[in-house]
Every structure is written in structure tokens, then in C-alpha cells.
């Protein structure tokens, strides 16, 4: 009954979505206020209906209603409640419903917070958002209905994939989708502005918070996924350049580019045309991501409901929205003439360089991800493009980005002198070089990756600190820092976060140590200055799994630091083993222990890693997200949301 209610709410939502697409567009064209205002009520209704639908599905999972096929396939009565709930989106159908929920949430939020928007623009934004919602509701209803019933209902379910029964991964999809789908808002703003025929500084200011919010969520989502891979997959890899990972990374890179180019639109009324294009492309890459993940066209580690029919549907959605937006863009590009004038050396130019590097890096990830497909289609060569290729192709661009970032971030608008900025940064630069040189001297006979990465990290952190300290005009330093706008803090924290992540990645890859051996009870060995003692291995029963658990003591010299319990679990219902690594987490290093099989001659296989700076990778991601949140909370956005900054746009001035 509840499932039917959810299904019905979704169908009703589909009808409402069609109305919210059409009515406000007509209203905005004819200047009928009532029809335009319908976009607001409609967006709210759409959100409520989707909440009802999603709530119904969640209820079915919570009470383990196995007459719903999806619940039967992805849940089990013995599963902890947390994973019953997260199981809602741990599958194709449920995750698409979550996608729709977030689409409508963003639409509703735009209607709540968009009071400062000109009515026609607002109506058009909500209509475009509703059109995306229509497409995805149709996708859910016609190809991926989560509410299908089973008769007779089975007694118990098939359990959720045990790899997904983990806090890190349980919350990975919602954040990721908030990011992916959040970019739909930038897309809707871009398309609405194109229909309106008007892109100005105010538009840049309005679109930025949405992009920023999407980017923050995407950062957290990707960070969670990477952290999960690190501790769950059993060898501590954090990034594999897998197609599905790339599918989330490309929108991230483009969202970073979009954030920065929207600043130029806002402050200088330049780069408008490019920013609109970027907003369209960024969301298209989100759609491409959905297509890659769910069509099965490219093989990936993440086996996730692959079905050609769904693939075709998603390809169609991607084609219609990207193609339509690009046609509109081509038709309207002429209305977006640049106004600002600036010198070759200026903040504007630096942001152009930022956009070039980020867009090219996204392109590199794109070509590497799609090449196996293209190669097979056009050249009949079946080949793979993997980690070594991506590392070699992608890293140089990021090194370039890291090198120029502190300089660009401090250049003044309009016209600047590189020499003057360089002078301010000289202390930071010397500091960074010293750090790099120190690690170069300490390490023996290895690659230059570690020192270069630490140099870049130190350079970015020192650059951000210099930037903050040089801001403001007069007065005591502390006083000055307190009065700095949050956006300035946000910028510095996010840039420093990038430095921390770069240092972490380089340190981990360059100085990791590994040990593989058979250990018997009471035996010990040394790795990277630590001693590891195996006390024993026993078998333990968990709520819905069986575990082989090792008992290991970690010593530094003779001092005991930690007791570690690496596990190997088997989930009988799902019929899958998982490894649960035991990690002693530290600021400068992790010690990572994995237990393997019992050996024929007695003892157990053990794999142990010393992982320097591992946590810096996610620490940096957290800093980036915090930086974004600081910027988002800046007063200027609230002011922009509350007050109408461009009164002239409230009357009909669109270039129709």
C-alpha cells in the first residue's frame, strides 16, 4: 500500500514536472505574472511529491517489505538499521530516485532563496530545472521503477552488497549526487540566461553560490569514496582512475573552473560566453557520468546495474539537454559581449590560465576514459587505458597549476606587476624550496616525485598564508585578519587544502613501504622503524557476517602504540568476502595491516604497509570543502540574495 502511494506520488510528480516546465516558460514569454509564479508553487509541489515517493521507498526498506522487489534484492532482516536505510540508494533504481529527489530539492531551494532574481529569470530557471526533472522522472518510471512488487513475497532478502555496508560508502552517494545534481542548477541558470538573452555581473553573482554548493558536496563525496577505497579494498589504494571515478572527477574539475570563471563574470563582466558554455558542459559531464556508470559501456570496478536499454535512455537525455543547450548557446552567443578591459598580467588573466589548465585536465581525463571505446569503435583495437597513462598525462598539468596558483591568486584585478607579487611571495617560495630540498636530501635514490610534491604543497600553503596576511590595509595583524571577508578566508583555506592534498599524494606514492609475509602466533617483524607482533588469530561472529580476526600489537621500539585487529569477513547471505584493514592512523603516517589466508604450513599471510602522509589526501579535501563553505557563508551572497541589485531587469528588457 505504501509502495503504491510512493509510485503514485512519482507519477503525479511527473505530470506536475511537465506543467512546471511549460507554464512558466509561456508566462515569462507573455509576461503573465500568475503563470510565472506558478513555477514557485510548482517547484515546491514537485519537491513534496518526490519526498513522499522517496519516503515510501525508505519505509519499505525500514520495515523490510520483501514484497517490493527492490527491497528483496538489496536488503535483509539481519542488516543493521543504518544499512537498511542507506540500502535505499545502494542500488540503481533507488539511487535514481535519490537523484530525482535532489533535482527537485535544488529546484525548491531556488524558489525559496531566489527572491532577488528578476521574475522572468527565476521562472525560466525553475522551468529548465523542471524539464531536467521531467526527463529523469520518466527515466525512473519507464526503465527503473523501484516500486515493482513480487508475488508471493519472499521470506527474506538477498542482502546489500557487503562492500556497501560501511559508513564511508553509505554516505558517499548522497554527497556525490548533491554535487552532480547541484551542477544542474548552474545549467538551469545558464540556459535561462540564454533564453532571457542577458548575462551580466548579477548573473555571475547568482550562479556562484549554487556552483559552490555543488562543488563542496562533490568534493566531500569524492573524498569519502577515496577514503573508503583506501581502508576497505585491502591494499590502501585511494584512486584508481577507474571510469566511474573519472566520471565524478571530470565534473569536479569543471566545477572548479566554473567557480573561478564566474568570479570574472561577477567582478569584471568578462568571460561571459565561456562561463555559460562551462556551466552547460559541467552538467553534461554529470550526465555523462550517469551514462558511464549505468550503461555498462565501459568496464569498471564499480559493477552497478548495467543495462543497455537504460544506457540508451540516458544517452538520449544527455543528447537532448546538451545538444539543446548548445544550439541555444550558438544562437545567443552574440548577446554576451565582454565589457571589462584588463592587461595581460592581471587577476583576470590568471583566472583564464586557471580555466585553461582545469579544462584541459578534464579533457585529458575524458579522452583517457573514452579512448578504449573510441579505439574499438573506429580503429578496431581493443585496448586499455589505465593508471600509468593517467598519472603520466594528468600530473604535469596539476604541477603547472600548483606552480602558478599562488602568483595568480595575489595578482590585482585589471593590471598587475608580476614582479611585485613575486616579491611578496619570496619568503614563501624560499620556504617551499627548502622543504623540497630537505626531503630531496633525506631520501636516497628514489624518484623526484616526493620532494616535488612537498615543494608544491608548501608553496601553496605558504602562498595562501601570504595572501591572507597581505590583505586589508591598516592596523594590527590580528585585527585585520578578523575583519577579512569570509570569502577571502575561504579562498586561502581551499587553496591551502589543495596543497595539503598534493603533498599527501606525492608523499604516499613516493615513500610507501610494503611487507608481505607469513606470520605464526608470537612472531614479529620490523617495517619502517615499527615492530609488529602477531598475538593470535580467531574467528568471530558479527551481526550478519563471520569474521577471521587477527590480534596484532604495533610497537615503536619497545613502546606499545596500538593493538590492531585486521579482519577478513564473509557475508553468507550475499556470498561475498571483504577485507577490513586495521589502520593505526597518525598525522604523518598510517600503519596499515591486512590479514590473509591461513597457510598450509601453519601461520597466516599478512600484508603490512607504512603509508606516509596518507591522511593529508583527505585532510586536504576536507580543507577544500571548508574553504568552500566559508566562501558560501560570506555576507555578500546573503546580501545578493536579499536585495535586488539590478532593478532594470524587473521590467521587460529581454532581447526577444
Amino acid at each position, binding site marked *: 500500500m505504501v509502495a503504491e502511494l510512493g509510485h503514485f506520488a512519482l507519477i503525479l510528480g511527473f505530470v506536475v514536472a511537465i506543467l512546471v516546465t511549460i507554464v512558466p516558460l509561456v508566462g515569462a514569454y507573455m509576461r503573465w505574472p500568475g503563470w510565472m509564479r506558478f513555477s514557485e508553487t510548482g517547484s515546491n509541489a514537485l519537491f513534496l511529491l518526490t519526498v513522499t515517493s522517496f519516503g515510501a521507498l525508505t519505509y519499505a526498506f525500514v520495515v523490510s517489505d520483501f514484497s517490493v522487489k527492490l527491497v528483496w534484492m538489496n536488503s535483509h532482516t539481519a542488516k543493521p538499521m543504518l544499512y537498511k536505510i542507506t540500502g535505499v540508494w545502494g542500488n540503481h533504481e533507488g539511487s535514481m530516485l535519490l537523484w530525482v529527489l535532489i533535482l527537485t530539492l535544488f529546484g525548491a531551494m531556488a524558489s525559496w532563496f531566489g527572491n532577488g532574481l528578476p521574475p522572468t529569470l527565476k521562472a525560466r530557471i525553475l522551468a529548465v530545472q523542471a524539464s531536467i526533472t521531467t526527463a529523469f522522472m520518466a527515466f525512473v518510471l519507464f526503465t527503473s521503477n523501484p516500486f515493482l512488487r513480487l508475488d508471493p513475497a519472499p521470506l527474506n532478502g538477498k542482502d546489500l552488497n557487503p562492500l556497501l555496508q560501511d559508513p564511508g560508502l553509505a554516505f558517499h552517494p548522497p554527497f556525490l549526487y548533491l554535487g552532480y545534481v547541484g551542477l544542474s542548477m548552474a545549467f538551469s541558470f545558464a540556459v535561462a540566461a540564454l533564453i532571457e538573452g542577458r548575462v551580466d555581473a548579477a548573473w555571475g553573482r547568482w550562479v556562484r553560490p549554487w556552483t559552490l554548493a555543488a562543488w563542496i558536496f562533490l568534493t566531500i563525496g569524492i573524498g569519502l569514496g577515496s577514503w573508503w577505497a583506501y581502508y576497505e579494498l585491502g591494499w590502501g589504494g585511494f584512486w584508481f582512475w577507474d571510469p566511474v571515478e573519472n566520471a565524478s572527477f571530470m565534473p569536479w574539475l569543471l566545477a572548479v573552473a566554473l567557480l573561478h570563471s564566474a568570479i570574472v563574470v561577477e567582478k569584471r563582466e568578462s568571460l561571459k560566453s565561456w562561463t555559460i558554455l562551462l556551466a552547460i558542459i559541467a552538467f553534461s559531464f554529470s550526465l555523462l557520468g550517469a551514462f558511464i556508470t549505468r550503461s555498462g559501456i565501459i568496464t569498471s570496478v564499480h559493477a552497478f546495474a548495467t543495462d543497455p536499454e537504460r544506457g540508451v535512455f540516458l544517452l538520449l537525455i544527455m543528447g537532448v539537454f546538451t545538444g539543446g543547450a548548445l544550439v541555444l548557446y550558438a544562437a545567443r552567443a552574440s548577446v554576451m559581449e565582454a565589457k571589462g578591459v*584588463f592587461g595581460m598580467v592581471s587577476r583576470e588573466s590568471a583566472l583564464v590560465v586557471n580555466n*585553461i589548465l582545469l579544462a584541459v585536465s578534464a*579533457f*585529458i581525463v575524458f*579522452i583517457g576514459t573514452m579512448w578504449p571505446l573510441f579505439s574499438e569503435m573506429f580503429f578496431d583495437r581493443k585496448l586499455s587505458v589505465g593508471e600509468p597513462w593517467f598519472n603520466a598525462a594528468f600530473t604535469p598539468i596539476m604541477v603547472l597549476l600548483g606552480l602558478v596558483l599562488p602568483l595568480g591568486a595575489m595578482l590585482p584585478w585589471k593590471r598587475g606587476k608580476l614582479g611585485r607579487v613575486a616579491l611578496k611571495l619570496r619568503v614563501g617560495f624560499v620556504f617551499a624550496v627548502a622543504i623540497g630540498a630537505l626531503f630531496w636530501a633525506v631520501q636516497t635514490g628514489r624518484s623526484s616525485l616526493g620532494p616535488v610534491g612537498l615543494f608544491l604543497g608548501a608553496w601553496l600553503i605558504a602562498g595562501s598564508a601570504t595572501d591572507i596576511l597581505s590583505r586589508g590595509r591598516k592596523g594590527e595583524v590580528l585585527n585585520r585578519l578578523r575583519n577579512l571577508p569570509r570569502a577571502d578566508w575561504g579562498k586561502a583555506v581551499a587553496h591551502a587544502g589543495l596543497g595539503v592534498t598534493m603533498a599527501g599524494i606525492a608523499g604516499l606514492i613516493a615513500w610507501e613501504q610494503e611487507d*608481505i609475509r607469513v606470520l605464526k602466533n608470537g612472531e614479529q617483524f620490523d617495517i619502517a622503524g615499527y615492530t609488529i607482533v602477531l598475538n593470535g588469530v580467531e*574467528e568471530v561472529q558479527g551481526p550478519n557476517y563471520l569474521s577471521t580476526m587477527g590480534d596484532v600489537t604495533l610497537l615503536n621500539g619497545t613502546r606499545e602504540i596500538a593493538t590492531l585487529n585486521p579482519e577478513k569477513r564473509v557475508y553468507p547471505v550475499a556470498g561475498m568476502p571483504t577485507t577490513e584493514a586495521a589502520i593505526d592512523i597518525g598525522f604523518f603516517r598510517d600503519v596499515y595491516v591486512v590479514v590473509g589466508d591461513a597457510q598450509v604450513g601453519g601461520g597466516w599471510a599478512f600484508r603490512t604497509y607504512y603509508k606516509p602522509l596518507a591522511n593529508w589526501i583527505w585532510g586536504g579535501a576536507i580543507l577544500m570543502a571548508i574553504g568552500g563553505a566559508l566562501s558560501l557563508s560570506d555576507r555578500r551572497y546573503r546580501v545578493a540574495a536579499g536585495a535586488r541589485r539590478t532593478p532594470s531587469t524587473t521590467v521587460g528588457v529581454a532581447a526577444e
Partner: protein
Amino acid sequence: MKWLSLFFILWALPAFAVQPNEVLSDPKLEERARDLSQGLRCLVCRNENIDDSNAELARDLRLLVRERLVEGDTDEEVLDFVVSRYGEYVLLNPTKGGSNVILYYAGPGMLLLALLIGGLYLRTRARATPEGSNSLSDDETKRLKQIMGE
């Protein structure tokens, strides 16, 4: 507890990739073997290298690589041998030959193109004359400064 241990025997699936008995005694050779395995795709898995994979076939391939290394093959000879057996699909770092030229030069090419377009754009902005009410003429700037008392 009896059924439990029985269960574990039935479920004795390999928990991780490189097993202790695979490791070569010569650390130099072992390091080369690890480097090579990281560039080889596990054919029955989805996008995993054989070094990380715990599949049976990946293990066979790891042992094959080590066998060749012990017999004195160079890295290239090992890769050529593996490719001759399994095709170029097995290489995670694709060769530079033939159509793959596009793959290798697309990135740098795009960077050059973008820098060129970006540079041209910046030049037009630098040369453009300020227009509209946004900017002030020299006289206006001077007057503004007077008013602001600078």
C-alpha cells in the same frame, strides 16, 4: 563452533593479491615484477591490475611475469611476451603506436590550442577600449580623486 570452522573452509577465498609464496627472493627482481604487474590488466576482473587483483588468473599472470624475469628477460621482453599471449588489451599503459598517437597527443595538443586561444582573447581584452558607463575617462578619474580627497 564446528559448523563455523567448516564454513570457513568452504569460504576460504583469497583475501588479497600477492601471496607470500609468490614473492621472489631477489628484492631487485621482485621490485621489477611489482612494477610490471602494476601495468598489466587482470583480464577476468573489471579494470584492476594483476598486482591488486585476487583472481586466480591474475595470480597465474604474476607468476608468469616472475618466471620470465628469473630467466633473465628484460622488462620489454616480458611485456612483449604477455602481449603476444593476451593481446594489447592487457596493457594498462597503452603503446604509442598507430591510432594511439591521438591518445598521446590529444592532451598536449589541447593545452597548446587552449593557450593560443586564451592568449589571443587576453590580447583583445588588453587592447579593447573601455566602453559604457562602467569606466571613467581620465578627467572623470581626476575629478573623482579630488572629490575623494586623495
